[in-house]
């Protein structure tokens, strides 16, 4: 991955991490810090509660990828839509979805963000323009294209951020979507969160084309590589892409190179990669680096950061308590929300 980044063609613009001077306001840095810290603590706690069997099913955590959610959210509007895959707790929290409701969803409680019906893979919130939370690898790519299609149809200048992993980039749905999005100038921002591994299979083992941004070039789609360990870099690239899209120029594609510290899911010990490789990324940890930037440039004091951390730790603790104390859904909820039609005649024998 790293060598690929260096040898990429001149067509590619790489948004570098860590600008020399802090280019953003104190509020912005603290907002990034707070969101990334919230996601990290939420995920750590989710893993812990999974270990205690309070959380079941599949559970894919976002630890290491927090800068993508942070840099993206600060560069788009609340009215814009987002759709993503199943490693999605961080994306939902980035949207502003309630921490309590998200934690309760992991517990399968009726106070969960989708009433305990979705679990770890399926958070949705119409209020936050968050379209999920999708479990079929790559299926959200045409869906996000369609969400964006509807924005254009309705005449807004909103866009839809359509996120997927490097595994999904090998699905045919990507090519069909890229093709139609370009042909119809659909306002969609495609983001591949390239964390290097489709479950246990490295990007290099899935194709001879290992630089995923190049797949956009086949459709003449503006495509860039972005350092996903830096909220600044993500913010800059997403801002540039959003401007291009809102001007009516059609889609844009960002390959955001990131890394997950944990396995694919809670049941994956990730033996397919070396300790050194993981450490290499942990050395560039987005939260630590942002903290460094904030302190080095005296954007805020260590005490101010501590205050944020304490607030978040309290928030997560509270979310766990909320989830623990909430009820599971009643059995009758099984028959709800299958059809909009209120009197749908289910077969019950």
């Amino acid at each position, binding site marked *: 991955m790293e060598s690929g980044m260096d040898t990429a063609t001149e067509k590619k613009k790489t948004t570098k991490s860590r600008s020399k001077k802090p280019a953003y306001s104190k509020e912005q840095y603290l907002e990034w810090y707070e969101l990334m810290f919230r996601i990290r603590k939420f995920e750590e706690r989710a893993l812990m509660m999974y270990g205690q069997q309070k959380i079941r099913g599949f559970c894919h955590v976002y630890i290491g990828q927090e800068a993508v959610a942070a840099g993206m959210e600060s560069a788009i509007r609340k009215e814009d839509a987002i759709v993503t895959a199943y490693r999605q707790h961080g994306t939902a929290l980035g949207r502003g979805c309630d921490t309590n409701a998200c934690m309760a969803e992991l517990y399968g409680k009726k106070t969960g963000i989708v009433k305990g*019906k979705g679990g770890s893979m399926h958070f949705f919130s119409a209020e936050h323009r968050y*379209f999920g939370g999708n479990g*079929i690898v790559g299926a959200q790519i045409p*869906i996000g294209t369609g969400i964006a*299609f509807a924005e254009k*149809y309705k005449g807004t200048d909103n866009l839809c951020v359509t996120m997927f992993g490097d595994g999904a980039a090998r699905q045919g749905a990507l090519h069909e979507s890229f093709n139609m999005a370009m042909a119809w100038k659909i306002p969609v921002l495609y983001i591949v969160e390239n964390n290097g591994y489709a479950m246990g299979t490295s990007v290099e083992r899935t194709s001879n084309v290992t630089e995923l941004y190049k797949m956009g070039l086949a459709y003449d789609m503006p495509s860039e590589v972005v350092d996903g360990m830096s909220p600044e870099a993500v913010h800059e690239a997403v801002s540039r892409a959003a401007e291009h899209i809102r001007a009516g120029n059609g889609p844009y594609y960002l390959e955001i190179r990131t890394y997950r510290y944990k396995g694919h899911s809670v049941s994956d010990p990730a033996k397919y990669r070396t300790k050194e490789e993981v450490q290499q990324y942990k050395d560039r940890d987005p939260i630590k680096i942002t903290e460094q930037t904030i302190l080095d440039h005296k954007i805020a004091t260590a005490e101010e950061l501590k205050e944020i951390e304490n607030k978040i730790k309290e928030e997560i603790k509270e979310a766990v308590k909320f989830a623990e104390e909430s009820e599971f859904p009643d059995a009758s909820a099984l028959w709800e*929300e299958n059809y909009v*039609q209120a009197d*749908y005649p289910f077969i019950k024998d």
Partner: protein
Amino acid sequence: MARKLALRDALNEAMSEEMRRDETVFLMGEEVAEYNGAYKVSKGMLDEFGPKRVIDTPIAELGFAGIGVGAAMNGLRPIVEFMTWNFAVLAFDQIVNNAAKTLSQSAGEFQCPIVFRGPSGSAGQLAQQHSQTFESWMANVPGLKVISCVDPADAKGLLKAAIRDNDPVCMMESEMMYGYEAEVPEGEYLVEIGKAAVRREGTDITLVTFNKMIFPTLEAAELLAKEGISAEVIDLRTIRPLDHKALVDSVKKTNRMVVIDESWPFAGVSAEIAYEIQKYAFDYLDAPVTRVNAADTSLPYAPTLVEAYLPNAAKIVEAAKETLYLNA
């Protein structure tokens, strides 16, 4: 006042009327716009509604079905036309994993009001890949509704109801019947999804069918009548939800039933109906429910093999007589 309309024109009226009524309705699919539809169902619609609302897609069923799902989740009412349901197999991920599950997995945060439509079933000597029926495939999935009807008047009213429905609907038509003409009422009307129609009243035996199998079934009823047997013919029109009550009510009257179903026998519509009848009309049955399906094989090309594969009036009459214990 009624006038005669071909099925394709009745479907065209349904879509056009709904598009005039609701700006969020649009049509997309292969050849629907400039070519006027592979089977001319959308003839003239591009001229009336323009390329924003009548959209030619590339040959990418998975992709455009998914775009339809996303658009439906975000406030539009797409009509996605498949040139045939055989090609929709490429889009089943979007229909089954997304359209059908949007409401449940989002616990009602998002709805998916979309219509997937196109022809289903055999259409002459089109061989294995272009001759399949998909009613029972789609009807197996909670979250979906499935309509299968070739009567022009009913198909029009059902399609209009499907477009207004807030749940995803799969509509199965028929290549062979697009030119079939019958009376269609003037003016605005809807046909309720989930209700069967009695096409012929009878007292001795109930023949249940749907889509184009209505024709050999009515022909069989006519042949039976000549032998003094009064057959009641029910056209399901909707497969999911199935109109169980209409079927049970009919069997209570006739005490016998044959299901005529162009799909394969295993775990199909006919099997579901037989289950319902043995469960809810057991005491009224004078004979086991039987069925006439397509053969449990792929459909080859040669005309003799097509003939052997499909239900026809003779096979239906034979099944009816078996049910009446009249076979020698």
